[in-house]
């Protein structure tokens, strides 16, 4: 979910070397007996630390081993390196059997051919695709192709607001339109307090927000044939709106332009330094940061009012983690059993309630743990107002190019240089030029 430049480098390197791997790799052999197999599983860092993830996954895996006799050797990989490792595994043919991937990587990884495609027959072995939420299933590969992975944890963006601070400022309900948000911000700003936190230095956060706002304006970053169309009035308007948080609306501390680690804006919200933040489902992190649960309010991201012509009422991109199987695995049926286990209803309930994410199978929502107002809000966002990022092979190049351009624009806005529409247009054009388009 947060590919870094280093990981893009390795992805590229891997793809260049892929034809070599194709010669030397052994095809996956079907294993007759699975009961004594050992699987290697690469998990991503969903919890508050790598050790935390091991503590969460450990008991679940023990359950699995007891039930099936299959051992699982789990490794938790930090976000800064996971894409590196996945692509290196693709190239060298030596990798895990099962792995987590960021769902926006699905189209790119699908193109490498390294993952097992979940055709209807394969899907059937893990329980069929109808169990999954449509929203989650939409971010599992290129349209028209079989999913290259199955959704494991679902996430979406929402507007987190501080109920106590809202009440103290006399605001009775969260804003539903951007105009309301700005008006609320004025009330909250008394006393030098900053209403809205933004992770302005993060490629991922910027690109996700730009995508969501662009959808609201009716824009698109790729046309139907997959060609990039970055510099359009709608996209410019979306980015301008982001800049205005700092420069005209004055809702956001200019310092936020430096926030690049993917954590600082949330910390500001959790510690009460700001009243609002637009973030993915984060109940686990908020608890660990010590925020008072009664103060946590969740609402969909505001929409423009009125929604412009051609605009869609989108408030989030489809975020989440998918689970995939390496084509080179020697334990295909054991791997399928593990995937089936992890996407089974009890596991979905347990893992997602621990991590604070959303189950990807509809049956899991029967569990009362997911009947809280927050989860209900996220679920309705995911099912009614979420759109997947452009499912094209150039997707991660797009994310990095435009996300980085926005980082530079935020830096300009923060240091006092007014960002104009033409500056944004030029930045988008240059970003597109980097994709060779």
């Amino acid at each position, binding site marked *: 979910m947060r590919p*870094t*430049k*280093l990981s*893009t*480098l390795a992805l*590229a390197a891997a*793809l*260049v070397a*892929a*034809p070599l791997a194709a010669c030397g790799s052994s095809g996956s052999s079907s294993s007759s007996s699975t009961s004594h197999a050992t699987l290697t599983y690469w998990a991503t860092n969903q919890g508050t630390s790598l050790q935390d993830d091991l503590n969460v996954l450990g008991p679940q895996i023990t359950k699995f081993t007891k039930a099936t006799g299959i051992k699982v050797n789990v490794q938790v990989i930090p976000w800064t390196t996971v894409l590196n490792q996945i692509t290196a595994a693709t190239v060298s043919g030596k990798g895990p059997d099962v792995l987590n991937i960021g769902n926006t990587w699905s189209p790119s990884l699908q*193109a*490498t*051919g390294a993952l097992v495609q979940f055709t209807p027959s394969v899907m059937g072995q893990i329980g069929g695709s109808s169990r999954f939420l449509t929203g989650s299933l939409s971010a599992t590969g290129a349209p028209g192709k079989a999913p290259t992975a199955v959704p494991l944890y679902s996430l979406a963006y929402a507007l987190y607001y501080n109920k106590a601070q809202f009440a103290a400022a006399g605001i009775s309900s969260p804003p539903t339109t951007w105009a309301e948000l700005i008006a609320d911000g004025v009330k909250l700003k008394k006393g030098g307090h900053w209403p809205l936190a933004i992770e302005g*230095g993060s*490629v991922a956060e910027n690109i996700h927000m730009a995508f969501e706002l662009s959808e609201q304006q009716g824009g698109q970053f790729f046309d139907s044939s997959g060609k990039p169309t970055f510099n359009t009035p709608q996209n410019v308007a979306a980015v301008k709106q982001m800049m205005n948080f700092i420069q005209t609306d004055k809702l956001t501390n*200019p*310092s936020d*332009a*430096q926030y*690049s680690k993917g954590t600082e804006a949330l910390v500001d919200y959790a510690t009460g330094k700001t009243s609002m933040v637009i973030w993915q489902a984060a109940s686990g992190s908020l608890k660990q940061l010590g925020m008072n649960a009664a103060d946590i309010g969740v609402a969909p991201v505001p929409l423009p009012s009125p929604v412009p012509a051609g605009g869609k009422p989108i408030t989030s991109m489809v975020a989440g983690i998918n689970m995939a199987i390496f084509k080179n695995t020697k334990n295909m049926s054991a791997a399928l059993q593990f995937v089936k286990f992890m996407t089974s209803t009890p596991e979905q309930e347990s893992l997602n309630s621990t991590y604070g994410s959303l189950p990807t199978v509809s049956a899991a929502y029967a569990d009362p743990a997911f009947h809280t107002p927050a989860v209900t809000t996220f679920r309705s966002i995911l099912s009614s107002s979420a759109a997947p990022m452009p499912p094209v*092979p*150039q997707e991660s*190049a797009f994310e*990095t*190019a435009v996300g*980085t351009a926005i*980082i*530079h624009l935020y*830096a*300009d806005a*923060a*240091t006092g*240089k007014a960002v104009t529409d033409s500056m944004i247009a030029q930045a988008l*054009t*240059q970003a597109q*030029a*980097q*994709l*060779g388009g």
Partner: protein
Amino acid sequence: MVDTIRVEKGVTASAPPPPRKRRWRRGWLPYVLLIPAVLLELLIHIIPMLAGVGISFLQLTELYLSNWRAAPFAGFSNYALVVNFNGAIGQALLHSFVVTILYTAIVLAVSWTFGMAAAVFTQRAFRGRGVIRTIFLIPYALPVFASVITWNFMLQRDTGVVNQLLLDVHLIHSRAFWLIGQNSFYSLVVVAIWRSWPFAFLILTAGMQSIPTDLYEAAAIDGSGAIGQVRHVTLPLLRPVNRVLLLVLFLWTFNDFTVPFTLFGSAPPTQADIISIHIYENSFVSWNFGTGSAMSVLLLLFLLVVTVIYLAVGRRGERHA
């Protein structure tokens, strides 16, 4: 026989060393001794380099990444794209090049000055000299990633010590950004100087140690003060050391990747867009490796030309000295 790469002999007051006789062996021994080095260089440096140059003539984009043998031959079109200063890519490359030149020049000048000043002032023994020398070497001894992460922490706008200090002494009135915006260039320069000047200090100190003290005494008798002694004794005798030091510092600073990458993270501000990072981002953001390789080859050619000119001019200067 003049050796093109060796530092030339300086002038000392002692008798010149006996002429070197190299054993002329038509033997195999030297070749055998060099085999490991040659093999490693071929494997790690030369062959990949040639492959990199080869890629610059291909249109190796994401379409052909998985089948690079089929990537179409692009001739010089990658190079044309990159030096087209009217286009987005060429313009950005030129900007990055200028930024890097400025950065290197300032870092070089200041690091050398600091190193020279410190070397001169610690040339003669005084109490605590050993401690001072040790302190000065610490920035160079610290691993880059550890020390530059610390600088990142120090330059944070709201929580960093730099802003705190500047506020406390009333040099600024409100907290400034040091890691984005215009100031980011100066931050990078300061951090680079912080790391480089101890190296200059080390080399210059080592060089000064071989200057005999009677030369200084002779100069003092002739009426030179401290500054005069530096100008007439130290600097001329350090010329061979300085020639190499400046060249090495130039190459290392110009090519530096780790310091700007650790300081600014994955998206450096445009004001501090150092060329090694620029090329890195340009190749791997767009997955247009042909273009990225073309940029790298141009960079290499530039450094080659500068080095050759520098060495040639230097040697001519030596002969006339």
